[in-house]
């Protein structure tokens, strides 16, 4: 018999579970008194000091080889640390992208010089990365990007623009997907570059989001010179590398824990004896969190084995972000209040997450694109 889908159950091994108590104690000490609004932002909240403290404990680049500053832990040990950080609403944005996908990409496709240069700095919590995929005219249709790299004597000249680049203004490097050639298919001729964001010709402009803050940016490249040594992997292999990166990006606990701070606050607002309607909403959210977590852990184990669970990651993202987006909506149906900006903790969380929730099914690939990937995996021809 063939299951339609592939999520073998995976226990969290003892070496992973032993990290849970230390990280909880660390977070309890570090996050005491943290405004609830920071917890709501979590992996959108930047705190380089917090990142450096995590680094001191060896909780960044945990799975990477020791010779590059890593801890040679399993992917499941990292999973425990990451889910605890998110559940506690820790401000992890500074190192988040580097730890989740830029570092692993460099490790897998980068050359020895790149690994030695970048990975130890990431592990020390001193080098931050952003993702250069979307462009003004290329969002879901990622392969249509037009930012172009042309050869020079010493390397490459980059021209174009990237958008929706989270945290670019505080990052040291971007891994950018760039067109370096023209294939017969638009997926061909793409390459990835490590771009130093201090290089001349780069302009980073904040884009204000609907909450009034600037969580993302536009990054414009005008005749930016990139040394030949900063091409990642093979020239023209960018699309395959990006697809591998997206499996890392789509299946983690950040795809179903984004509203955890609001959910715990909601439980306390409802009190120990909720009515039947409220109780069944809480039970439903807990049930889905438990189940999606098992699926997400299963994908982490598949990544650890070196499989490419790109389709499975799409399942986790679609289910998880749907749940995340429902939580503020459910909260509005359960507690009678018109939240204001300077209201209680609960009101502040609700105000922020109500506005931010639409992004959950946009970032990392839209819901419709993700569902298209699932459908293709089913064999709809």
């Amino acid at each position, binding site marked *: 018999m063939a299951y339609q889908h592939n999520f073998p159950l995976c226990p969290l091994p003892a070496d992973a579970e032993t990290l849970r108590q230390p990280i909880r104690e660390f977070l309890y000490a570090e996050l005491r008194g943290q405004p609830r609004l920071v917890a709501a932002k979590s992996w959108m909240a930047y705190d380089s000091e917090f990142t450096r403290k995590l680094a001191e404990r060896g909780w960044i680049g945990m799975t990477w080889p020791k010779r590059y500053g890593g801890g040679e832990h399993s992917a499941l040990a990292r999973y425990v640390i990451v889910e605890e950080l998110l559940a506690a609403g820790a401000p992890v944005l500074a190192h988040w992208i580097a730890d989740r996908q830029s570092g692993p990409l460099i490790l897998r496709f980068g050359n020895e010089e790149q690994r030695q240069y970048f990975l130890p700095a990431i592990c020390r919590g001193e080098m931050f990365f952003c993702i250069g995929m979307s462009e003004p005219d290329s969002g879901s249709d990622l392969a249509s990007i037009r930012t172009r790299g042309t050869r020079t004597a010493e390397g490459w000249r980059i021209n174009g623009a990237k958008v929706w680049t989270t945290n670019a203004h505080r990052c040291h490097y971007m891994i950018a997907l760039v067109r370096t050639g023209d294939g017969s298919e638009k997926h061909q001729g793409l390459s990835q570059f490590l771009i130093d964001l201090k290089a001349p010709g780069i302009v980073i402009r904040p884009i204000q989001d609907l909450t009034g803050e600037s969580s993302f940016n536009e990054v414009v490249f005008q005749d930016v010179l990139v040394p030949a040594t900063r091409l990642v992997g093979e020239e023209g292999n960018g699309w395959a590398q990006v697809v591998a990166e997206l499996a890392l990006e789509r299946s983690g606990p950040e795809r179903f824990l984004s509203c955890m701070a609001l959910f715990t606050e909601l*439980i306390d607002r409802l009190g120990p004896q909720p009515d*039947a309607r409220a*109780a069944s909403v809480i*039970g439903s959210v*807990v*049930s889905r969190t*438990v189940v999606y977590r098992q699926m997400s852990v299963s994908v982490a184990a598949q990544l650890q084995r070196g499989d490419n669970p790109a389709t499975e990651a799409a399942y986790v993202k679609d289910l998880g972000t749907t749940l995340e987006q429902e939580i503020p909506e459910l909260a509005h149906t359960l507690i009678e209040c018109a939240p204001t900006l300077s209201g209680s903790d609960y009101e502040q969380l609700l105000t922020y997450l109500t506005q931010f929730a639409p992004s959950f099914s946009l970032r990392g690939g839209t819901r419709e694109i993700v569902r*298209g990937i699932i*459908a293709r995996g089913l064999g709809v021809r």
Partner: protein
Amino acid sequence: MSTTEVRALFEDSIHRILGDQVTPAVLRNAEAGEWQAQLFGVLDQAGFARAMASEEFGGVGASWSDVFPIVFACGRHALPLALPESLAACWMLDNSGMQIPDGTLGIAQASSGTALSRQGGGWRLQGTLSGTPWGRAVDFVLTHVRHDGVDRLVLLNREAAIVIPDQNIAREARDRLEFNNAEVYALVPMPDAFPFDPIQTYGALVRSAQIAGAMDRIVNLCVQYANDRIQFGKPIGKFQAIQQQLAVLAADAASVTTAAEFAFAMAAQGEPAFATACAKIRAGEAAGKAAAIAHAVHGAIGFTYEHTLHYLTRRLWSWRSEFGTHAYWADKLGREVCAAGGAQVWPLITRTQIKD
């Protein structure tokens, strides 16, 4: 044999047997209320009905993890027999130190007001088991009765009951058994290690895996139909409107399978309650949506009796309500979570973990 080997053996053979034997004729006859005794005999002979009993009672002492593929397959093939119930009954009997009698076994919840009394050297039962799966056909029914402040597992001989036949939406027999001061076949005090409400819990556990199996098959049927059916000059699966619905269906199906398999694994390590609640909630929430999508994709042909889709969708509509609707389990789980407070919800989620 290791537990993985037992499971692989079950998985391979149950699908082969059910694929051959659960024919449209079997399904039609079962819907007329007939117990498919011959098919049950085949499955019993192959060792499925009593797999969870110890060897002394004709089983192999299989664990809940081992039998997940069996129960999943019962759902996938719409098996119209109380085989999952037999497994649950065997496990509860064996693990409470009761003898397992020869004959077919079922489980059912006792209606409120059902009472035990001592008469002479034995016990008598006055009351009703409602919605007993295949109550008309099974030889024994296991239930749970609280008497004088003591919870007991009570095994009843079906012949001692008046049977009032009824059927669920899938026309599976769900009979009312009335016991009028009837002799109890056997009883024991509820073992400490059992969940608070074992019939409801293990009943919900097996139904969650059956729903997972049925949804898995529905995904197959929908994909095949979407590829075969041509409209506007192309397979309807080419349309994004259909693809998006199939993706929702498949993601829900995958989550129900994970939920059920996880609950079976937790039950195997003696912690069934929390994970079973999660599984029945997830299965119940997804079942109605899955049936709706499956019928939308199949159009009018899927609404005919001739097409096989309804054997699965009508089971989804039935099974989601049996042994507790998702609302029942969500309410129960939600109350526990709220009573513990917001700070405890994450520790509760991470504590529920299969062991390495």
